[in-house]
């Protein structure tokens, strides 16, 4: 595994994760939440929420653009939380969709850039158009993503 990630803290429910992004803008606390959405055909689906903690208010936002020059490390950390979460909630699916098309595009770029590694652990599907889900392919635009943990991978 070549990608570097930040260390992170996890709640005892294993549904909330926090870590600090470090860069030119300083230290920014990031939160990842796996929110139960619904069960479809006996498979639990969770929404991946990802956001910043506003340093002034202490409240969450996913709309800020922190631009801390560590995007790949952040994405790798989020991916690591998905590994941890799917270890604990085996058989679940993780749904990810940016709060706007630009952010969804960023997710897509992150998946594409590290697809070989991500694909080792997860089957990734993208919503190509409404009601049309396909296996993720680089160079294709998607509206949302579904990650299903492959059963034969090990989180060391």
């Amino acid at each position, binding site marked *: 595994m070549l990608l570097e990630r930040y260390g992170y803290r996890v709640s005892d429910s294993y549904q909330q994760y926090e870590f600090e992004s470090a860069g030119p803008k300083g230290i920014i606390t990031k939160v990842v939440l796996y929110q139960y*959405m619904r069960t479809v055909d006996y498979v639990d689906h969770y929404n991946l929420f990802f956001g910043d903690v506003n340093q002034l208010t202490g409240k969450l936002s996913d709309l800020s653009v922190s631009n801390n020059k560590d995007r790949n490390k952040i994405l790798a950390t989020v991916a690591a939380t998905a*590994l941890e979460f799917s270890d604990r909630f085996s058989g679940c699916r993780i749904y990810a969709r940016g709060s706007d098309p630009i952010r969804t595009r960023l997710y897509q770029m992150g998946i594409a850039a590290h697809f070989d590694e991500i694909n080792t652990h997860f089957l990734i599907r993208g919503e190509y158009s409404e009601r049309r889900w396909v296996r993720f392919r680089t160079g294709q635009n998607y509206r949302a993503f579904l990650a299903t943990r492959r059963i034969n991978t090990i989180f060391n």
Partner: protein
Amino acid sequence: MSANLNPEKGNQKTYAISDRAGITIDPSMKDYSNDPFCLQQLAEARRSFSKSDPDKKEN
């Protein structure tokens, strides 16, 4: 397996993505699950997801 036993904020040591080092269980973590913004995002995700049926439309 190793663990980072010092969850000090700002500890920016990095780790391999699938390495369990650098992970700290923090029972005292502030719970954001009922944060209004999180609930709003969840509602939007549910609305968006309900428009799809991924299990029956996979290619």
